[in-house]
């Protein structure tokens, strides 16, 4: 039987991570709590978030959700989380959308050193480009492969275009376009001579489905759509990790991605 876990969150986390709406949509698994000793703690990713996460673990949190974290030194937090066996899940804009996991095996079968991954994000005008890039790197890691090298072709107030290399040797082009004309969205695509895989994602706050299209000589297949927001999927994952007594490696992955962001 599913174990119900209490959740506490700050107003900032509520606002950026839609925590109350997610908790309301998982009434058997999660329950809101104002108690400082809630099992799960949601932390907004603005300055000082790593310290706040350590404090939450010290206060007895069994799982921590960090929403859209800014680059930070997470060494001490990783050490504390591992020592206590507490999973710390990083909830970024795209990576937890269920379509991402569905796309991963298809991207994997077309990810080689001759491949070119096209990655694009449409984000609101004025968005913090470091945050946009961090979320895009997390998406690429979850769907395809980690980015191991990155150089900007351009970066300015309207977005960026960067050239990158993935761990498996594929090349990638990463784009962000800042505009209020169209809703926030992200796409990934690999086109091979006869095959292609494309992933299109809406923002984390909507349950509109991501779409995975796999095409080849036989035609194109749209994978079954899953109408769950990325935020909700992230919380289900945290709940499952806690219930199973497992940790996760989100912080290690975040540290690698954050290093790419701060180096460039």
């Amino acid at each position, binding site marked *: 039987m599913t174990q119900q876990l209490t959740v506490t969150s700050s107003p900032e986390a509520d606002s950026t991570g839609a925590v109350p709406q997610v908790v309301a949509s998982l009434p058997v698994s999660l329950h809101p709590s104002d108690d400082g000793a809630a099992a799960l703690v949601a932390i907004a990713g603005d300055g000082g978030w790593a310290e706040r996460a350590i404090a939450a673990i010290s206060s007895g949190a069994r799982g921590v959700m960090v929403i859209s974290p800014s680059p930070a030194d997470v060494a001490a937090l990783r050490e504390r989380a591992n020592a206590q066996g507490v999973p710390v899940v990083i909830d970024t804009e795209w990576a937890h959308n269920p379509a991402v996991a569905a796309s991963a095996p298809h991207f994997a079968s077309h990810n080689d050193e001759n491949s070119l991954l096209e990655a694009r994000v449409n984000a609101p005008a004025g968005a913090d480009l470091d945050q946009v890039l961090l979320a895009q790197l997390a998406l690429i890691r979850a769907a395809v492969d980690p980015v191991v090298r990155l150089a900007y072709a*351009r970066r300015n107030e309207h*977005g960026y275009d960067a050239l990158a290399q993935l761990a498996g040797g594929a090349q990638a082009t990463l784009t962000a376009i*800042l*505009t209020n004309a169209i809703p926030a969205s992200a796409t990934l695509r690999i086109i*091979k001579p006869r095959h292609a895989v494309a992933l299109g994602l809406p923002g984390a706050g909507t349950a509109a489905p991501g779409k995975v299209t796999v*095409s080849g000589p036989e035609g194109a297949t749209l994978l079954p759509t899953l109408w769950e927001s990325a935020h909700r999927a992230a919380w289900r994952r945290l709940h499952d990790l806690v219930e199973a007594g497992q940790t996760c490696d989100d912080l290690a992955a975040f540290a690698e991605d954050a290093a790419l962001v701060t180096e460039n």
Partner: protein
Amino acid sequence: MNPSKTSTLGVGMLGAGPVTQAIHLPTLSRLREVFHVAKIMDVDPQIAESVAGRVGAGWTTSMDELLADEAVQVVVICSPHQFHAEQVIAACRAGKRAILCEKPFAMSQAEAEQIAAVSRETGVPIIVGAMHTFDPGWLAAKEHWGDLVETAHTIRYSIVLPPNPRFEDFATEVITRPERQRQNRHDPEVAAGIVRGGIMGLAIHDLPLVRAFCPDFTDLEVLSCQVPDPSGYLVNLRIGDRNVQIFGINTESWEPEWIFEAVSDTTSLRIDFTPSYVQAGSATATISHGGESEVYGPYAYNGYEAEWRYLADLASGKAAPLDVTELIHDLTFALDVADKASTAVRDATALTKEASV
């Protein structure tokens, strides 16, 4: 059934390859009340005769003979690129009523200026076969995009191109076509050649559209350039203060894509074009402003048919000729992109090759 050849404009075609066979002849078959094909020239007599025979036209292997034929009032130039300038000039001097030259209409700015001078001197109007600039979807977008030319900060132009025969074979029955060969994109000179060929042969279709959104088009910097597998181009450019990316990839797939986008803080234009060759209607343009979108198209005919309709109006004096200076700007812009991008990819590929040795 056949409109009289005396009441329609006689077309002379220089070059009878796949573009003539799969694009212009099928398009002209939709405009029989306006045009008839009078004569077709090709250096290969068998091709000239065979293609002309399809439409009941005369044939020749001589450009001079075609231009001297009084039954030819409008000339379309579909020969290899290097002959375009010479043939456009000869057609102007022959006193034809209008000329359609497939892109690019010259291979250098000097040639383009020579053409412009002859066009002005002879009064013969010229259009370049940049079909998307005539596409009803593009024209509808132009009418409704408001201040986007002034406010756009990002331009994207992306083509995923299956093999041409995939479409040519639905438009006609082609009797000759060039072979495609796989090339080693890791060789710097080959990479430079692929990019130059890709820009001047493929990207050039919509570079006039890109230029329309880049008022400072002479202030152009290539920020990066690479060749995707198996061939194509991915070029990041700064044009004035605009973020521009052009991408084209040749695939063996069935799935085409041809998209042009211009984006500002508040407005986004996306145009999805139909594939070349097939008569599949116009592009569809979507203009979005926050929560609202307007969609224009698809309309019943494509840019090829629109350009021929315009040519008919030009030949009969009903339409004002295009400003040849704009055509020169389009060409010099394309040449600038091709030169700088091919240099950039040559250098980048050489560096990668050195690093791997």
